[in-house]
């Protein structure tokens, strides 16, 4: 299946932009506010950009070096059958977990903001049927859907930021760096741990039309994400000031403020549409990664038989893993960076080292 599929570099870039930030638009500001208020924007530009780009570059280097293989294949070539299988399994499980986490994040958002009386499971189920449908069509279809949705969504987010500019007070950004460098860097860890999922892009390297530019494409998606982050973070602080610490979904709250021509335009529905489109891409992407990874790991010919069973597992995980939204935010702030960075920076480093040693 995979061999016939072709994705272009812009498609890959768009996909990873959403892969990193779709649900992040909602939750990153929340986790960031835990550490910094005035300097929230510095999280996006120097820190996230630097760390994210470095990690994406690392993954790109690994990917271009073994551009004929997928991630699972790379593990097995470098580390041999047994350790390779083990590493592969860990990575597949990790992406399974990330899929479940992002699915839960979307579900929580929908329940919290627009469907307060609907049970989470119903939302997650409906969303998952959609995602499974797109995953069955393969990465090419997901990538193309991303291509058509991305520009629109990005513009929608930017427009929202422009529209709310009337409420912004620049002085809320001051004082600059009053708490020093520590807190912003600490705050940047959560977004960076999502940026580290670019490791998953190595599952697609064989279907890339120009695998040599993989590095560029991944770094570019980190850059795009950081510009969006800069806009959102600075605008949230400028509008809410110290009150941003109290707010759950900052960007959503920004939109609730917009009053154009003296009426509320129901812009939060547009925003919600953008978020759902974006997280649809995000969940589809991770879901597909998991499915394809498992196919490779099991050595199957087709991935389609795996879609439904894995879907059930993901739904179950997403509902059962966390009790409530506070737990999720706490998890994203405290434990996610450690896990994500160990796996997605540690393993590629190990692999590169192994490749060096074994002169591959």
């Amino acid at each position, binding site marked *: 299946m995979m061999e016939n599929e072709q994705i272009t570099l812009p498609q890959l870039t768009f996909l990873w932009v959403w892969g990193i930030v779709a649900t992040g638009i909602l939750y990153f500001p929340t986790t960031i506010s835990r550490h910094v208020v005035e300097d929230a924007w510095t999280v996006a530009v120097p820190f996230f950009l630097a760390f994210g780009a470095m990690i994406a570059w690392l993954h790109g280097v690994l990917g271009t070096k073994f551009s004929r293989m997928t991630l699972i294949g790379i593990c097995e070539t470098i580390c041999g059958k047994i350790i390779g299988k083990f590493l592969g399994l860990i990575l597949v499980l990790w992406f399974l977990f990330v899929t479940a986490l992002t699915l839960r994040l979307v579900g929580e958002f929908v329940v919290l903001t627009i469907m*307060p009386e*609907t049970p989470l499971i119903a939302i997650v*189920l409906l969303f998952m049927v959609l995602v499974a449908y797109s995953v069955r069509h393969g990465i090419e279809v997901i990538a193309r859907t991303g291509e058509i949705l991305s520009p629109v969504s990005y513009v929608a987010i930017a427009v929202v930021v422009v529209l709310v500019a009337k409420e912004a007070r620049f*002085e809320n950004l001051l004082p600059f760096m009053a708490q020093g460098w520590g807190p912003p860097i600490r705050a940047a860890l959560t977004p960076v741990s999502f940026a580290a999922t670019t490791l998953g892009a190595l599952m697609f390297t064989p279907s890339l039309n120009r695998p040599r530019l993989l590095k560029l494409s991944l770094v570019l998606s980190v850059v795009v994400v950081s510009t969006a982050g800069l806009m959102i973070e600075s605008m949230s602080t400028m509008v*809410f000031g*110290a009150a941003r610490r109290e707010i759950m979904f900052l960007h959503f709250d920004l939109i609730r403020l917009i009053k154009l021509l003296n009426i*509320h335009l129901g812009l939060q529905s547009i925003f919600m549409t953008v978020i759902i489109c974006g997280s649809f891409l995000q969940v589809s992407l991770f879901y597909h990664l998991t499915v394809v990874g498992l196919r490779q790991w099991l050595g199957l010919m087709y991935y389609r038989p795996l879609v439904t069973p894995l879907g059930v597992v993901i739904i179950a995980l997403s509902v059962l893993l966390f009790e409530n939204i506070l737990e999720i935010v706490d998890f994203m702030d405290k434990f996610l960076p450690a896990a994500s960075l160990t796996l997605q920076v540690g393993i590629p480093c190990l692999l590169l080292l192994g490749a060096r040693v074994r002169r591959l």
Partner: protein
Amino acid sequence: MSKIGLWVITFVLLATTIAGCWSVHELDTLAIIMGTGLDKAEDPDKIRLVAQVAVPAELGGVPGEGGGGGAKATTLAITTGYTVRDAAQNLSRYFSRIAYWPDMQILVIGEEAAREGISPLLDFWNRQEQPFRSLWVMVAKGEAKDIFAAEDYLEKISAVGIAKLINESGQASLTRKSRLLDVTRDLASPGVSPVLTRIEAVDQAEGKKRIRVAGSAVFRGDRLTGWLDESATRGLLWITGEVQSGAIVVQCPDGEKRDVSLKIRRAKSQIIPEEKDGRIAIRVEIDVEGDLGDQTCPINLTTPEHWRSLERRQAAIIENESAAALRLAQEEFQTDIFGFGATIRRKFPREWEEMEQSWDEEGFPRLEVTINVTSKLRRPGLILQPNRSR
């Protein structure tokens, strides 16, 4: 059967069977609440919530029919509860419809309730998923309930009328416009105290009650401590740069007791914290532009000397008003309604940390504030002299 067909069937079945209709509320099951008042109830632990509910049958429908008639377009629902949410849910005891909050225009807090702190009263609105942040929040002189008893001149729904009144209050700039967002932001920020719109119901001719929006309510922390009258409010707005428009009445330069009014076109202010003799002081630069509004004295004011003296008089009035507001805040209320603390925090974050603890008690009342007013008159309008000028 084709695959797509199967998928669509799964999808629709899922949607219709599993989903049921959880969050569905048909329009005719809703009680659309236009304004809410919060007072203290007789039971000291409880809050009294007054909701103004629109009666749709009197407002919509086929144009020409219904509407206009004598029936009232709104009705009042009153409940009590330990918290706002509690009181809000208690509405269902009296009301056959589900309370629908998002289109609420105003939130009126009664004087006594405000004296005990407004933070607990605002929590509910910020927590809701609906767009409440541009809701107007105000403090009533007396009880909030009385506000809703008054009628608006034009609007059938008085809450809508009040919202419009506040929205256009920049015309005179005699009250502070306070949205939920502003109040929340001020409450959360160190070195600022919130100031809210003040509203009262006044008796007018024919025994009818009317609304008056004027002056503002001063808070210390989240508790109401006192009121600013109209000119002091404008003094506050001069310093914070929130004056939009309005009239300044000055004495005619010919010395007689005749008045000249100046129309404010533009007002800006800058609050600059400075280090002065080892202590931090504040300099406020107010920059005002105006036009000649009208005159009652019969002299030609467009001569350079008169023009300049008008500008001086304008500056003097602005200075007086600001100084009065400053004096009230520093001496009587001892609360930093201007946000001087916040500006100091931005420029001198280290020094601020020391001052923060006792800012309202010591720092602010002893703060040295200088006010400089630059006043310009730009245009005399379309006539140069009054028609009977000498």
